């Protein structure tokens, strides 16, 4: 469908769950995960100040650079890796088609 991409959430057992994601609604990947009832606390509602929407990007095309706020948050997280992102800061855009993420422990 036009204006729709597929992003995948990788489960602990390696299974990748496809999530149909509209690109014309200004949704973030955090919102897409929540809308699909995955357990993302996202307590700050997408303001890059709680890090409870932390994901690791397993596969993607080119991703936008993190903003200073996002980079600051990621830098101060104990479990972050080179591939960590805050899912609330990744906007669902056509370039993200095929993105694969896994949820990271928040604490």
């Amino acid at each position, binding site marked *: 469908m036009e204006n729709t991409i597929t992003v995948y959430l990788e489960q602990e057992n390696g299974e990748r769950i496809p999530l149909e994601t509209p690109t014309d609604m200004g949704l973030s990947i955090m919102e897409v995960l929540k809308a699909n009832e995955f357990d993302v606390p996202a307590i700050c509602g997408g*303001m890059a100040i709680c890090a409870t929407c932390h994901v690791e990007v397993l596969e993607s095309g080119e991703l936008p650079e993190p903003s200073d706020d996002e980079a600051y948050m990621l830098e101060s997280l104990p479990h972050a890796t080179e591939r960590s992102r805050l899912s609330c800061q990744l906007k669902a855009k056509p370039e993200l088609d095929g993105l694969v993420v896994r949820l990271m422990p928040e604490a």
Partner: protein
Amino acid sequence: MITTDICIVGAGPVGLFAVFEAGLLKMRCHLVDALPAVGGQLSEIYPKKPIYDIPGFPEVLAGDLVKNLEQQIAPFHPTFTLGERVEELQKQEDGSFIVLTSEGTQIACKVVVIAGGLGSFEPRKPAVENLEQFEGKGVAYMVKDPETFRDKKVVLAGGGDSALDWTIFLANVAEELTLVHRGTTFRGAPESAEKVLSLAEEGKINLMLKSNVVEVQGNGKLNAVSVLVDNNANQKLDVDYFIPLFGLVPKLGPLENWGLELDKNAIVVNTTDYSTNIPGVYAIGDINTYPGKLKLILCGFHEAALMAQSAYNIIYPDKKFVLKYTTVNGIQELA
């Protein structure tokens, strides 16, 4: 032992406003919060952000709303236990309660109001082998009294503002101070980052970038940490204290074991008065759930008003509650 009418667990906006609603009905409140300051999420997560949906305030900073609430409840002289987490609830034979905190404080009360929001804010813990085993024996998640670290060997971990601030402060206190940081840059306040880098250049602190503490060791008490440098070499440091500073995350924590009816980490309540399945225990604000629940400050305030009327019947079983407007009666201070 502290004795009061209502013990409020959580001093966020909803717990604070509950003091007002209870005070109008001449009920005294004692508040307990795990954080050292009142205000809950507003003080901890977003003190400088404006809120636009508080009736009568087209715009108010979260921190200012908390200050206003403190002013509004001052005539009712609430008392506080801050920096202590509520752990246990003991029901007494006469139907009253004793609330126990992590530091052993006891509060005797007739009604318990849980206004615990998202739960108590706990330190975010890194994945370090043996870490929990050494908590209180050299591993600390907070600097409560900097003097504890005087002339000691201290390792701090983290790359945020609190790690930078405490590195600067403890540089003059500790005998030897190491800051371990996973990244290569600091995005905290630029002045703090510069100061930390210059302390490292002057040899006053030991700065380990691209490094992670992976294990803590000791014999009853912490005496060493292992640091993985640049994902390959392991370096062992002799230390007295290890302080990981990675911010706070909310956890429901001990409330989970009180026998309350829960639904996905929230307490199920009856919407006529926000009572829980334990008589005399109410739950208001973000911590409760019911069909149509909205996690908004405004909704928590409403719940506090209904809770107070119901609690009145427990505290004054022989008196009939009559609604009075503050417009007519003003606010009668509690002595």
